[in-house]
């Protein structure tokens, strides 16, 4: 029992995320008889394959104190690349090229952010547009399509009950990144530059390495996610996938990252993504139009932000009160000591000015 209490006190964000996920799932499971079934679970895992990658990428970026706005464009670019070149080069080569390009874009972004010492939002809002242009260029302003549908069929095959090859790959990705973030020095450097950048730099961390790693992972995830979407549906549009940023950000914030950086983790990202997926799938089951999903996601994000801002203001308030009371206590102590000294010295010294 006390162990549970300790865990709750230590990671209340995660507890909140799990609670929220359970509430959302429970709500839809009760109101819709088709929701809590094996088939729906498979469908949710299929969604998890894409959104999970984006949520993971954004979680890492926010842990590092930055945000990657270009993630949707990057995903759209690799979707276009993989769909366009699968017919001529084969799926494996096209996949390699697409994910490689996306990762390379991430590395370049990370390098420039660290080299120019600018905020990531500044650069990524530019690359958002740039990559859309590149994607339009690659797709020649058309919707690209596959002609051979063996790959989409392979990706959507069921293995191990609830999984497909795509979602298995993504789960493996979560495990690897989670281990990396927790147990390696590079992973902890990412937490360090997010939570306390000045202190981390003063302690000798080279800003470039963690920044490049974060954005490389972000690019890789975006690229892989784009490839999965593109190959699964067999089509890709250069201007598509804009919704990924909002959904991924909501997932990351539900998962307990702090906008100030340095907090959150891969488990939170997974739970946050699942929550968003429950919401998405449940709303689709209840025949809600797509724009309403966006509305709900927006409201959810605003609520989480309000919650975080409120708790931060409360923390600040508490800390200030703590400091003030410490100062008061110290002053009282000093005054008392002086009074005692004066008393024992029989008023020999002059009274100090207040």
């Amino acid at each position, binding site marked *: 029992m006390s162990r549970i209490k300790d865990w709750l006190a230590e990671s209340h964000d995660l507890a909140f995320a799990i609670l929220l996920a359970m509430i959302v799932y429970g709500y839809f499971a009760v109101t819709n008889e088709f929701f809590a079934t094996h088939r729906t679970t498979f469908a949710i895992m299929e969604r998890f394959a894409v959104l999970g990658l984006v949520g993971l990428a954004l979680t890492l970026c926010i842990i590092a104190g930055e945000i990657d706005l270009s993630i949707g464009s990057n995903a759209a670019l690799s979707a276009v690349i993989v769909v366009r070149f699968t017919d001529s080069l084969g799926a494996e080569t096209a996949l390699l090229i697409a994910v490689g390009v996306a990762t390379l874009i991430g590395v370049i972004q990370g390098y420039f952010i660290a080299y*120019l010492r600018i905020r990531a939002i500044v650069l990524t809002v530019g690359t958002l547009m740039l990559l859309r242009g590149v994607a339009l260029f690659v797709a020649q302003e058309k919707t690209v399509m596959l002609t051979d549908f063996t790959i989409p069929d392979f990706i959507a095959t069921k293995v191990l009950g609830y999984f497909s090859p795509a979602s298995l790959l993504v789960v493996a990705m979560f495990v690897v990144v989670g281990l990396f973030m927790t147990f390696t020095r590079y992973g902890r450097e990412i937490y360090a530059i997010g939570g306390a950048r000045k202190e981390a730099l003063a302690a000798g961390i080279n800003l470039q390495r963690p920044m490049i790693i974060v954005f490389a992972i972000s690019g890789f995830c975006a690229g892989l996610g784009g490839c999965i979407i593109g190959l699964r549906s067999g089509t890709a549009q250069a*201007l598509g996938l804009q919704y990924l940023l909002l959904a991924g950000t909501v997932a990351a914030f539900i998962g307990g990252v702090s906008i100030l950086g340095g907090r959150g983790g891969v488990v939170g990202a997974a739970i946050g993504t699942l929550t968003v997926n429950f919401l998405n799938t449940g709303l689709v089951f209840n025949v809600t139009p797509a724009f309403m999903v966006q509305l709900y996601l927006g409201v959810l994000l605003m609520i989480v932000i309000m919650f975080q801002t409120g708790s931060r203001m409360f923390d600040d308030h508490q800390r200030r009160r703590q400091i003030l009371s410490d100062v008061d206590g110290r002053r009282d102590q000093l005054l008392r000591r002086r009074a005692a000294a004066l008393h024992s010295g029989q008023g020999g010294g002059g009274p100090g000015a207040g």
Partner: protein
Amino acid sequence: MTGRTISGVHNRALALIDRWVQKYSALVVVLVAAFLVVFIYGMVTAPNFLTVFNFKTIIRDAALVGIMAIGLTFVTLSGNFFLLSMKETAALCIIAFATSMSLGYGFPISFLFTMAIALLAGAMQGLLIGLGGNPIVVTLGAAGLFFGLGSWWSDNLVLSFRRPHGAEWLGTGSLFGLPNITIAFILIAIAAEMTLRYTTFGRQVYLIGANRAAGKATGHENLSMAIKVCIIASVCSAFVAVAFSAQVSSAHVNYFSSEFGSSGDMTIMVIATVMVGGNSIMGGFGSTLRSSLGAIFISTVDNMMVLHGFNSGPRVLAVGLMIVFSIIVFALLRRGSRALE
């Protein structure tokens, strides 16, 4: 004699370039030079580019994005980065305006109604930002909210109102041979620049943007400032929505998403305009004049590419390159001149 003069000029030019290279970095000089060469080449070779009519077209194209960018510049200057909800605010407002117009309330009431909605939208975002929320994330959420509300309100349909209506003068009218939207753009640009330069509020924007701690210490909290600048940005979006709706006599939430202009996303175009103008995204440095010029500049390049017969892909690419280019150049120029945040 002449030979010596030429070599003198040559040497002086070399010295000038040398000084530039030392003052800025070699990369900046090379980038700017390469850009100028491409720009001038395109300008000279584009057919019908250097005509008065084309110049008017450029400014008219720049007007709508420019007005939004002027509004956003206040947010950027005050150190609150940018709002990702510009086009969604406009989408909500265009629905509000068209609904009101189609119900027959007339232009003044519809206009005021739209502005009131923009005021609310701006105040809500400003409040959350001022209380310490990250502007990007808050406005990302607000964007989803506004877009959803707009779609829900209009049932995701195109609303239209009949042609002889009270807003036609704003949408399609013209004065002295200039479209009214262009005139509105120029007037708003002048008013915004005057506000920033000569009023207390304008100076406060710069102060809080340049140094938030100093602003706080002198009693200028970011809370009220964030609310004010967000309202300005939202009202500018709403004005653009009204002008655009008056032009086409209809409204749909997607007008600002994909069909608008050449380059896809209106929000990103607006942010691009602010950046290409050379405003510091960290706040405190820049002006609305820069944003207006940025809008005209992007519009010029776009116009040139249209005249050369480029498709939308290369044009979006060009705008993207311009943003990234301006980010890199301005970051290199300002390197070391400001304390790093």
